[in-house]
Every structure is written in structure tokens, then in C-alpha cells.
């Protein structure tokens, strides 16, 4: 069946939990406002099961109830992995036989973001979730520029190193910093190198993988990405089998 609803304790009951703060003092009026919002969210009937004032001008609510919405599974658009997962040996083999030189990969955190643990997880030998990072791949030439690299600096280094792929991490998302920075990245590479720009890959825990086109990059990876996925993607995007055949 392609239509489902949230499940509390019975199929089809539609039950959800939600919490939020409204900038109104606590009281019956605030509860009414919370119910109004819950109603607009499609929760019907809604129960305000808890509320308490925060300071004098705010009220926090917990609401339970049944949403009237249906979820149509057929309409779900998923960024399904459209490339095969390869082992490190297969990745190395593909690069060797199809490219005949090392694949040059450059990584960085751009903007003022100093969170390197994510990009390190993808690049460093140590890797992530039991998979070795890209530095482990014999046929890759990996440079990790670290954090707080400016976009112009990154473009310059990528050009100098003739990078095949540039991997950028963005973890801070407040005020959509990650989206802004990614767009700036894409624009700068387009402007500086046009068609000959390297493959642009961004990643970070709060990205929606479906946004690549919108952001002007080739691929977006989200939370929990493993190095093997990234390596496999690089092979499929840069060295498609047909080319080698």
C-alpha cells in the first residue's frame, strides 16, 4: 500500500507529538493559540498536554494528536544511490585502468566553519564507521586543507593541483550559512574555471541530498556518509565505465 499515516498504537491513527514556543504569556489564550497552530499543522483533534511559561512573555507547549494528512509513499522523491558501491580494491582498480594516473582529491571546510571532524572522517586514513578514508586509497592523491579556508584560496589551490574533485564540508547551518557558502563556492569555481572546473562535492549533517542541482554542485552528502560511498561516487562520476569500455 502506498498510502500510510503516522502510527501511535494502531494502524492509521495518525498520532504525532510536537513541541514549540509561542511568544505569548502563559494562560488559556496561549493554549488556544497553541491549538490554533496545531490545527493549522493538520493535527485534529489536538491536545495541549503540557505548557509552561518561559520568563514572562513566552510559553512552551507539548501537543499530541492525530494528523489528518496522508503520506503517499509513491510520491516520495528519494536521492537513491545511482552508482554501485565499490570496495577500495575496485576503486583503485577503476582509477588505474581508466585514468592511468592518480585521482587528485582536495578537501576543505570553507567559510568560517571550523568543524573538520566530518571531512576528516571522509579523507583521513582513520576513516569512519569502520571504513578507511580516501587517504587509504593507493590511487588517490588527497590533500586536506583543513578549516576556515576561503573560497578564493580553495579555487587557487584546486587549480594549481589540477584537482579532479573538490570536497567541501559545511557543518554550521545557522542562518543557512551552509547554503550560502556552497552557492558562493559553486559560483567562484564556475567563474574561474567554467566547464573545466573539478567535480564539486559538498557534505555535512544538515544537508538535504536532494539539493545538489539547486546549489550548483555535483553532489551533496548528508549525515552518516561513509568514505566508501564517496569513493564509489567519485569513480562513477569521473570515470564512468562506458568511457573506459
Amino acid at each position, binding site marked *: 500500500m502506498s498510502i500510510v499515516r503516522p*502510527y501511535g*498504537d494502531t494502524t492509521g491513527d495518525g498520532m504525532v507529538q510536537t513541541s514549540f514556543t509561542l511568544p505569548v504569556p502563559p494562560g488559556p489564550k496561549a493554549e488556544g493559540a497553541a491549538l490554533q497552530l496545531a490545527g493549522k499543522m493538520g493535527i485534529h483533534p489536538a491536545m495541549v498536554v503540557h505548557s509552561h511559561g518561559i520568563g514572562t512573555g513566552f510559553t512552551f507547549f*507539548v501537543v499530541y494528536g492525530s494528523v489528518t494528512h496522508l503520506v503517499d509513499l509513491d510520491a516520495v522523491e528519494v536521492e537513491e544511490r545511482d552508482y554501485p558501491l565499490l570496495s577500495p580494491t575496485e576503486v583503485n582498480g577503476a582509477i588505474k585502468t581508466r585514468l592511468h594516473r592518480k585521482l587528485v582529491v582536495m578537501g576543505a571546510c570553507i567559510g568560517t566553519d571550523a568543524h573538520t571532524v566530518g571531512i576528516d572522517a571522509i579523507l583521513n586514513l582513520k576513516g569512519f564507521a569502520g571504513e578507511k578514508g580516501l587517504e587509504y586509497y593507493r590511487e588517490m592523491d588527497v590533500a586536506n586543507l583543513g578549516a576556515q579556508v576561503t573560497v578564493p584560496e580553495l579555487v587557487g589551490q584546486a587549480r594549481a593541483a589540477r584537482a579532479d574533485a573538490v570536497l567541501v564540508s559545511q557543518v554550521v547551518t545557522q542562518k543557512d550559512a551552509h547554503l550560502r557558502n556552497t552557492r558562493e563556492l559553486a559560483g567562484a569555481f564556475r567563474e574561474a574555471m567554467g566547464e573545466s572546473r573539478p567535480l564539486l562535492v559538498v557534505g555535512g549533517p544538515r544537508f538535504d541530498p536532494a539539493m545538489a542541482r539547486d546549489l550548483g554542485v555535483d553532489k551533496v552528502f548528508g549525515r552518516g556518509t561513509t568514505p566508501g560511498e564517496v569513493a564509489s561516487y567519485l569513480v562513477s562520476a569521473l570515470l564512468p565505465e562506458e568511457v573506459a569500455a
Partner: protein
Amino acid sequence: MSARLTLDAGLVTRARELAALAAQPVIDLAGQHTTVSVERAVLRLAGLEGTDPVTGEGEIPWVNRVVDVVREQVGLEHGVALPVWHAIASGGAGSLQEVAEQVGAGTARFEVPTGGAEERAREAALAAVGAGLSRVDGARRRREELVATHGDPPRRPWIYLIVATGDIYEDIPQAQAAARAGADVIAVIRSTGQSLLDYVPEGATRTGYAGTYATQENFRLMRAALDEVSAELGRYVRLTNYASGLCMPEIAALAGLERLDMMLNDAMYGILFRDINPIRTFVDQRFSRMVHARAGIIINTGEDNYLTTADAVDEAHTVTVSQLLNERFAREAGLEDWQLGLGHAFEINPTVPGSFRLELAHAMLARSLFPDAPLKWMPPTKHMTGDVFGGYLLDGFFNLAGMLTDQSILLVGMMTEAVVTPWLSDRDLALRNVRYVLDAAGGLGEDFSPPPGGFIDTRAHTVLGEAVDLLERITADGLLPSIAQGTFGITKRPADRGKGLDGVVVKAPGHLDPATELMEAAL
């Protein structure tokens, strides 16, 4: 063991003496009476199943019909066994089932046999009920085998989870999911109305409110589902239900037959929280406990409930008193210490300063007073609110206290306690909570040692002292008058009031209850 306090031995001895004194008059009372449900349980053990297709929209079990008609025709003072097996032994009916059908058809004519006829009826009844008890014994042996095969949970406390959709077919996958996620014991709560029904519903049911009907078929279906998942997990997952309400003896019998592993079964819960007549309750209690003893079932008593109506600090000693009474009643009925899942609860108002340490004190008192009982510890319910975040935290501290004080069975709290009967996700989150606590803080007992004379030790002794004082008063006043005065759960229940009183019958000399007779003989 750090979770034990060194209690004042004199006080402990006195407490048990007083509990025995207080319980005795009620035990005597139980011996002098029978009830419609005890009599129906006898028929159930003898194998009578099914409902009268005609009366009451086909919902009334044959056991009810037979007992009612026997009572109409000859009274229940001699019990149902003599008239019924007299009918069979004298050739009036070919089988118990046929007796029922005659009742249905309105052709049954019962009489109380005497002399040789009485002896024959008696033999036949004992044989028939004995066969049922053998099935109970078989179920017990089967449990022992399965535990040997699959193994017990790897650690204490056992994790106990509630399922309560009202629909046995939604309950089953939820129970299996809970077991896979770490539950050691599954309890299927009953529909709100069932405890006051004076019959046990039949068949697989899907229409309970805030709980699922306890029926023999539901027992069977759920036990089979848990056997399946036990094999899959390599850990015997236990099943619990409620031997409580007006049909307590029958449900106990069905639990024994269908291999349930634990049963909620309390000496006073029905009186206090269901307004069931006290005498009816104590009579039904004794029978049901004998069945549980025989079936190797662990009982869970209901002291936790007192703290939902009374204050958990002020009335802490009433929990201790009730545990001592439950222990006494249970031992008298043949239950062994390993079967006494005495109840208590984490119900102190969390805004009381030092509430967590008070909880530890109360939990350690119970642990130290009943060192060999598989204590069952209940999570916060009364002070849970719709603040599900705060509730999740409180449940975590409950889990911690349970582990630190070496409780045996931990009923896992739900963050939505004040909101809804548990959702699938609530149960899953609750199990994650308890898993974190047990994995992260397991072994913390090594570092936990409340000093003699410290806050915890002092508080535990205060409560024990208050319990002894209260027991003195109860032995002086009598247990029934004490209940009438609102001693437990600040709820007053006079002995001559309450539901189900009309189902209580004073036994005549020569009353036959073959089940009790066989069970007592085997003790």
C-alpha cells in the same frame, strides 16, 4: 551486596509476627467461604470451556451458566462439584459438556448427593479436576524446559513492558517488537471494564478500551507469539496478565493452563481500587494464589497503587505493611519466596527536596526486608505530566534507582504516562532509556554504600518503625475494620459493601472444592 541495609532484626521479626497475627482472621474467613468465581474455576480446571450460544448474546460462558443454575436449584454451600459430578456419576449426563448443554436447554436438575453417591461424585470430581491440574503441571514443566533451552534474561532487573492496544492482533506484533528491543516480560493490560465483569470473555478480542480483554484464547495467542520470539532471541520472554477483579480465581486457572509466567495478584487491590467486596476478594485471593503456587507463576502485588492515591512519603509505611501482609497470605497459600513479586513504586513528588534519595531509601528497605523475593518496582506515574522531556528524565532516574537498589523486575516507565496508553515508539524509547542506564551505570553498586546512620539508613528505619506501629494498630482493630477506615491508599472500604458480595457463600459442612483439596494435599 551494597543494595542491602542492615535492618534492626528485632523490628523485622516483630513486623512478621504482627503480619501473621493480622492475616490469620482473614485466612480463616477465606476457609469458611466460597464464591461463584471459585466454583467456576473448579469447572474450568475440569475442562469446561465455551459459551452458551443462546443466553446473553452468546457471551456467557458455560461455567457461569452451570454455577448459576446449581446455585438456583440447590445453593452453592456444598460447592458446584458435588451436584455436577453427581449428575455425571449418576448417569444424568455423559460428560461435563453435556451437563452444560442440559443447563442451556433448561433440562438440568441438580441435587446434592449424600452417602455413597456423594463419595462417587467426589471421586469423579477429583479425577476431573486432577486432570486439569496435571495440565497446569505440564505447563509448568514446559516453562522449565523452555527456560532451560532459551535461557533466562542475562541480567537483573528483568525488563517488564506493557502492551495495551485493546486489540490482540495489534498487541502481538508490538509485544514481539518490544521483546526484540529488550523486554524480558510482556504484560497485556486489560480493558478498563473487565475487572467488574462477573465472567471471563471468550475468544480472540479486538475491542478493549485502554487494554485488551484477558481471555483464554488471547493468553494462548500471545504466549505462542512470545514462544516464537523467545526461540528467535535465545531468551525466554515471560508473559503476564491480571488475576484480579471478580474473576480472579478463573483467570488464575486459565493462566496456569496457558502457561502465563507471572500474574498481577494482590490481596487488597480489588477491594481498594475496584470497590470489590473485601470478603469476596480474600476468598478469591486464596484460591488464585494456590493455583499460582502450583503453576510456578510469580505473582506481582499492587502496593504501587497506594501511592497513586496517597502520598508516597507520608504513606510509605503502608506499602511496607501491605507487602508483609501479602507475603503472609502468599506463603500461607503455598507460594515460595521466589514467587513473591512484591510491589512498590517510585512515586515521590519529584519536586520534594531529596526525592531521589528518599526513593532509594524506600527501595532499599523493601530489598532488605524481602531479600529473596523478586521485587517488582514500578515507575513514576502520578507525577508524570505532559512534559514528556522531563518525564523521560524521571524515568531514567527511576531506572537508575532500580539498578542501584537491586530490584528484580523493573516495569519500564513511559514518557507519555500522563497522555496516552503507550505508543509503539514510547515503548521503544523507554527501552533505550533503560538500556542506557543499565549499560552505562551497571556496576555502580560498587560505589554506592549508604552509611549506617546516614540519611538513607535513617529514613528506611523510620518507615520500618512506622510500619510496625501500624501493624500493631491493625492487629488490635482487625484487618477488615482497618481497611474500612481507609488505612491503605486512603480509600475506605467497609466489609459489608462493594461489588460481588452476592457471589460470596458460606460453606456448608461437607462442601467440596476438589481443586483446593488437591492443591493443599500436594503442598
